[in-house]
């Protein structure tokens, strides 16, 4: 179990930059999710930690010691690949024993440890099967057992849940979290699924185009996204982002003017107003809105409405759609819930709020 540091790590293949100057530090036993769209460099980061790729520049440290030049096999990193990468020619038990074979663990001890870990991930009745005879969920547990049996410094999970069906994904999420807590192993989960990241991780590293957009707890990323990218990526259904113009204490959106408060309003210019659908609600007075679509989502209903500040999505906690397309109403939101981003830098303007 280890502390892991990345300092100014860059990975490029000639002109193609996959990871651009990222720095992070992981505490011992922490569960961190690397979240981002496909192609953002998150898997490359993972493979650099595992020692499969060498960084082009920057340092990777385990417990303070630089490991850039340490071979993958000597790093003692457990990795669960997206495809699970089980060895098809070996039984489940042989798969789990494989890492121990190179650690010179005596056969009887190795077998005991393998059975222990198999019990932990609940596959002790499958040990004689071959990977081809297992379901996706079972294969995933085997891959997890194989990664954990060597008591790794660091556990890397590369989109481990993306090949599972929805129900199984839900239970495996809790399962992986339980196992990680039980063993206290420092873990990095790579995913493009924000729900996976927010439900499992202590901290989330949100990446885009090879760069880190924001590092923080799931709540930080939801409440105070540093950039419009994070704001748009976290939250379901996605946030409303509205082009606006900040001029002193007013926010101009087309012909409509909203009140702006907070420090920093004097730096006017083009901004984006971010409003989460769950923060918009009906009120006696406010923005005049006409419903254009309603989508029942089970527990809630998502409405789309035309308003003077553009088309807005908003949620209502009713399972039966209450409003039909064409219905007219007034919408409002709390200033504290609004997010204002500088349109040029895409960064959040802390403390600036918009009011209806």
């Amino acid at each position, binding site marked *: 179990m280890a502390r892991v540091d990345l300092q100014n790590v860059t990975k490029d293949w000639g002109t193609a930059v996959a990871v651009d100057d990222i720095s992070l530090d992981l505490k011992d036993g922490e569960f961190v999710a690397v979240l981002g769209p496909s192609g953002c460099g998150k898997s490359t980061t993972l493979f650099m930690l595992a020692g499969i790729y060498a960084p082009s520049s920057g340092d990777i440290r385990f417990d303070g010691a630089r490991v850039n030049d340490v071979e993958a*096999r*000597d790093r003692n990193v*457990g*990795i669960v690949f997206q495809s699970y*990468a089980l060895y098809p020619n070996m039984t489940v038990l042989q798969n789990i024993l494989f*890492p121990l074979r*190179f650690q010179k663990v005596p056969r009887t001890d190795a077998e005991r440890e393998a059975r222990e870990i198999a019990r932990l991930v609940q596959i002790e009745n499958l040990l004689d099967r071959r990977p081809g005879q297992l379901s996706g969920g079972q294969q995933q547990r085997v891959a997890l057992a194989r990664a954990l049996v*060597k008591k790794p410094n660091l556990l890397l999970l590369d989109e481990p849940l993306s090949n599972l069906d929805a129900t199984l994904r839900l239970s495996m999420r809790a399962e992986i979290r339980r196992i990680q807590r039980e063993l206290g192993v420092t873990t990095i989960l790579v995913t493009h699924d924000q729900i996976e990241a927010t439900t499992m991780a202590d901290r989330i590293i949100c990446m885009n185009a090879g760069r880190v957009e924001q590092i923080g707890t799931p709540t930080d990323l939801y409440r105070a996204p540093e950039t419009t990218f994070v704001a748009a990526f976290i939250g379901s259904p996605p946030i409303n982002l509205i082009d606006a113009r900040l001029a002193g204490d007013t926010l101009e959106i087309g012909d409509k003017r909203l009140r702006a408060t907070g420090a920093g309003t004097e730096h006017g210019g083009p901004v984006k107003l971010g409003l989460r659908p769950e923060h918009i609600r009906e009120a006696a007075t406010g923005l005049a809105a006409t419903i254009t679509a309603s989508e029942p989502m089970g527990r809630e209903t998502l409405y789309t409405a035309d308003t003077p500040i553009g088309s807005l999505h908003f949620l209502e906690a009713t399972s039966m759609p209450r409003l039909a397309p064409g219905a007219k109403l007034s919408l409002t939101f709390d200033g504290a819930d609004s997010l204002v981003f500088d349109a040029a830098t895409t960064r959040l303007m802390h403390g600036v709020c918009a009011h209806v």
Partner: protein
Amino acid sequence: MTAIDWNRLATRARRGRRVRSALLLAFLTLVSLPVILPFFWVVVISVSARTGGVEAAVLWKACAVLVPCVLAYAGVHTFIASVRARIIAGLLLGGLCLIGLYVLIGADLHLNNYRFLVNPNLIEDIRGAATIGGQFPWVWEAFGNSLLVALTSMTLKVIVATLAGYYLSRFAFRGRSFFLQSLLLLEVFHPWMLTIPIFLVIFWVGLLNTLSGPILVLTVIDLPFYIFIMKGFFDAVPWDIEMSAMTDGATRRQAFRHVVLPQVRGGIIAISVLGFIKGWEEYVFVTALRTGNSYWVMSTYLYYVAEDVMGVDYGLVAAVSVFYMLPSLLLYLFLQKYLTQLTLGGVKG
């Protein structure tokens, strides 16, 4: 809506399936007849011909028994679904067949043509030692040499093709695509076109009249193709399995041996079979690379049995042929499932 007569539709579908499979069987029988018949004839000749002549009568009599039996079994196979019934019918027909053969041609069968297996001085016994200078070897010597040529060139081919295929599949290096293209280019030229240069090279390196000559030449001319086949098989092994092994503490070599190699087993077996058969049946280079009778292999042995002795003993030639093709045939029969995988691997590559 009128009621649908499900039973009638089901009956029609069952009948259709039977007709289709019967037609297929008939077609396959027809197509394979010209392929099987010559082989069958060679076998019949080898166990029935007496010195000096071949009689077609035995062949026709044997066919008269076998063809109805085969057709009857085809019928059984088409119309009876139960596997047990099929086996019983097959055994019965097989028994009938044996009895029929025994009654009709039993008296004509003998093993005298196979005497070359136990008699080291076969030709001398017939023609007298003077005829061919006592140079004609015992068949087992030729057999041993053929085995040596086939096994050695097979082993070399498999080792080199496997390692080269792996390297080409996994590593990017300068000139990789040029190398792959030139491998293909080599396939354009038929090796026989190179006989004279090859002869000269072998002569200069002093391997003329040794078995090492044909072994090396056979290995080299097949390699490009085999490397391609193996590259295809390695390409089909997922990259992350290997990476997984290496993060599990294996060196690249250990990952190759424990994880990658077992997954291309089919390819290795396939090129082994092909490589063995290629060396086993080789005639051109074993003849071209010797002056005089410095070594004998099965193909040259068969050639001399057929051509060098005045007045051909067809029974003997047929018996040698049967003996000669037996190893290839057995290999094919037992390992054909790997040979069919070959096309799959090839397509992937």
